[in-house]
């Protein structure tokens, strides 16, 4: 799997390259600025891009803007955005086109190599990887005034949280140490209680949950 990586700090870039190479990714390019990233994404046609939000020369949200631009010219181009901070505002913008293949994680998540690599693979396959912090913020805001959400059992809330992060049933089952069938039952309960349309497609399911959590704001 070919990856284009954009990160301006040498230490982090180097670390990410080694981490991804150790997990059998091929680094098509590891760049350090916005213009270089735009060029690499256009010319190298990678399977997935791992991008830092803040990049030179402007040191604003240059990386994010480059990613949006690349996704406009190549819809569905898988992009995993990394940042020192996560904002619902950015998460919403990334999810706005509804085509999936996006991830948005805190840089700290790299510490857990397995989970991080899993997130990269998921995004590359057209799935979603949302930072637990984004989901927690969404949930805590919705919990205050959302009746359907209040009807969920604590276990179902746990499952909902992991599902919104973009995890598959198998992964959720693994994390909660239960069978996949139990998770499937929880999910169908959740969808019934929140009055969402059930879908077999994992990715569509995640997007529906995220849209539900983010609605009305």
């Amino acid at each position, binding site marked *: 799997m070919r990856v284009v990586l954009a990160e301006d700090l040498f230490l982090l870039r180097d670390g990410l390259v080694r981490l991804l190479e150790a997990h059998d990714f091929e680094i098509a390019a590891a760049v350090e600025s916005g213009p270089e990233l735009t060029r690499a994404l256009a010319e190298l046609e990678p399977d997935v891009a791992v991008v830092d939000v803040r990049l030179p020369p402007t*040191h604003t949200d240059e990386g994010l803007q480059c990613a949006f631009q690349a996704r406009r010219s190549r819809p569905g181009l898988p992009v995993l955005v990394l940042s*020192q*901070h996560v904002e619902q505002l950015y998460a919403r913008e990334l999810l706005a086109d509804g085509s999936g293949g996006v991830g948005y994680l805190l840089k700290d998540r790299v510490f857990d190599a397995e989970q991080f690599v899993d997130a990269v693979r998921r995004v590359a396959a057209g799935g979603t990887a949302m930072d637990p912090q984004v989901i927690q*913020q969404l949930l805590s805001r919705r919990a205050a005034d959302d009746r359907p959400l209040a009807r969920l059992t604590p276990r179902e809330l746990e499952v909902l949280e992991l599902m919104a992060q973009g995890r598959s049933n198998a992964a959720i089952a693994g994390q909660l140490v239960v069978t996949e069938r139990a998770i499937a039952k929880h999910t169908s309960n959740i969808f019934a209680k929140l009055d969402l349309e059930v879908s077999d497609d994992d990715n569509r399911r995640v997007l529906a949950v995220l849209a539900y959590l983010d609605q009305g704001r």
Partner: protein
Amino acid sequence: MNTNTKSGPLSARARDVVVAAGRGFVLALVSLPGAVLGFTLALVSIALVPVGIGLVTTPWVLGRVRAFADWRRRVAAEWCGVVIPSAYQPVPEGRPWTRTYTLLRDPAVWRDLRWLQVDMTAGYVTAVLPVALFLYPLEGIAVAAGLWRPLSQWGGYWYGFVHVTDQSSAFGAGALALLLLTLTPLAPRMVTAHFRLTRSVLGASQRELAERVRVLTETRRDAVDSSAAELRRIERDLHDGAQARLVAMGMDLGTIETLLDKDPAKAKQLLAQARQSSVDALAELRELVRGIHPPVLAERGLGDAVRALALRLPVPTEVNVELGGRAEAPVEAAAYFAVSEVLTNAVKHSGADRIWVDLHHEDERLRVTVTDNGKGGAVIGAGSGLAGVERRLGTFDGVLAVSSPAGGPTMVTMEIPCALS
């Protein structure tokens, strides 16, 4: 050559005189009708305040008068280098009554009106004089040269105190003209005199300038104090937080090194602990950074930073942004933290279930309003968050107004003079 060295300054002086006459002409042309019109309108408008109409018209009229005065300040500085200080009080946005009231309480406004009376009399004379000093001698010379014939056709013509009836008395007028011509070089000084006169009436008094200095000193002290307190807080947070965690992590790693062979299971447990420490340290640093300068503010500017802030609030908040560019970083930060504090206040104390934030820029001012549908009763009292906001904005000559009747709604308006780029 001798003649050349003399003609240089002479022609320069002649040019000065012509320029001064031109300026005097412009001033005379503008000052009399402008001052009469402005003074009359202001008088009528203020007289109509008790009936109500004046409340609407007064801010407008006084605004025009101020623009007229500011134009005079500008040309005074440009033409003669006479600096006329101004010290108007900021006019709050809001109901016409509060605006009119604030304007009528401002001594600078009354000084404008006093100046209009001086400008239509003494000001007019000092503006006309340089024109006369230039034109009148020329007229006398023309009279001597033959202009007396048509002018004295109907029973004589007066040039100064000379009664011109024939060629010889016309020569008398010419002689007087030459005498007056020696006064002509005074024309530029007369223009300067006009502006000096203007300054003496229109310039802010020592007392007001002293008041301005007092306000600046106070806001500067507040700014220095609060930034020092902020630095102390950051130092303490780093010292007790991230720094301590890194120390603990380093110790854990050292222990792991020795345990690696002896007790691998224990080493693994400590490794997990060290990793958790690093995650916690990062989380703490992130919060600290957010308090120093929120990352969204750096990345996206004020509008999106406030939007991102609104998304974190437990109360549904609508944000409306109309900004054509970005303000300077310190102003953006001040505005952001002010909005943040006001929003926190609203969430904590108002009991509102909806909040609206509006950000826009007009007339060289950034204007932010935060409205909530809560129970009202907010005041800028000692110890309240709003007093802190007011101090923070004061550094940038910003103002804060609170309208919060019992029963709500509460509307907090903030204004900071600034330019967008």
